């Protein structure tokens, strides 16, 4: 019983660390023992503070309700074991899933006829506590991999998510970026959102943007979420769904 899988997590608070760890392990609080290794320190005005460090040890399965669907699975390397192997710090975990991601994506890029380097890391958690994997593809002359309206990049991202998910035997959400394109596009969308909001207010009626993917519409909605004078909504049917920005009543 000494070789129970363990996972160390660093986060701002003990609660957050626990939630993060359980999410990674796919377990509930009753399945693990928690040991606080470092209670952290507040720091001055929240700056320079040390984060909390906790260690989660997986309790031996009580016979039923074990986390992995072990029956019929060819691979017995279930999540707790794998995570425990590679969990020095939450921020820079490089586990088997990231390795799989890098090798699958890099092979696909080469099969498509491009020369590029591929590196993967975990993104921060979204509001639902899910973590996606960010994949950077860097190389020369990759614009064909983006395509018009990022059509090819989205197809590439979708297919590689499925391929990696199959290989890793779990659902993975990849965000594939080529030469920082998505980051630039996001900035552009945010600026456009603000500009169109101004225009909607100036004209006193709603403004409709060009059709965008769900991910891009989300960026626009988020950007204007806190705006005092406009509301946004999506109208129309995929793949031609568009955001409209309207002055608040």
């Amino acid at each position, binding site marked *: 019983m000494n070789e129970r899988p363990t996972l160390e997590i660093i986060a701002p608070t003990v609660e957050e660390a626990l939630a993060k760890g359980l999410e990674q392990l796919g377990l509930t609080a009753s399945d693990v023992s928690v040991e606080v290794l470092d209670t952290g320190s507040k720091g001055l005005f929240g700056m320079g503070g040390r984060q909390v460090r906790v260690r989660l040890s997986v309790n031996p399965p009580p016979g039923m309700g074990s986390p992995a669907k072990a029956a019929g699975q060819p691979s017995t390397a279930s999540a707790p074991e794998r995570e425990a192997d590679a969990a020095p710090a939450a921020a820079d975990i490089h586990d088997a899933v990231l390795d799989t991601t890098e090798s699958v994506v890099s092979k696909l890029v080469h099969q498509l006829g491009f020369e590029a380097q591929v590196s993967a890391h975990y993104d921060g958690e979204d509001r639902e506590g899910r973590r996606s994997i960010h994949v950077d593809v860097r190389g020369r002359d990759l614009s064909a991999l983006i395509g018009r309206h990022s059509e*090819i990049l989205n197809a590439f991202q979708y297919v590689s998510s499925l391929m990696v998910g199959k290989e890793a035997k779990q659902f993975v959400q990849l965000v594939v970026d080529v030469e920082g394109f998505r980051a630039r596009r996001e900035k552009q969308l945010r600026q456009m959102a603000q500009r169109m909001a101004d225009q909607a207010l100036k004209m006193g009626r709603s403004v409709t943007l060009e059709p965008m993917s769900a991910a891009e519409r989300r960026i626009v909605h988020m950007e204007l979420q806190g705006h005092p004078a406009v509301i946004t909504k999506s109208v129309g049917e995929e793949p031609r769904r568009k955001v409209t920005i309207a002055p608040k009543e």
Partner: protein
Amino acid sequence: MKDLMEYIAKSLVEHPEDVQIHESGSGDRVRLELKVNAADMGRVIGKSGRVANAIRALLRVAAEQQGKQVTLDVLEP
């Protein structure tokens, strides 16, 4: 082109041993016919053909690099 299709298809299905690809066409036109196990049809086609269309987009990129045009048909098992 066939290698690319084979790599993608075999990575998506439960039964990679049942993946069959037939390449035909002449000149700069390439036609790929993909056959998979009946149980895997959904995995290579997807909801409203989303997966198949994404694969077609990728094949198109690879074909363009060679100055070719490609079509993909997923055949009924």
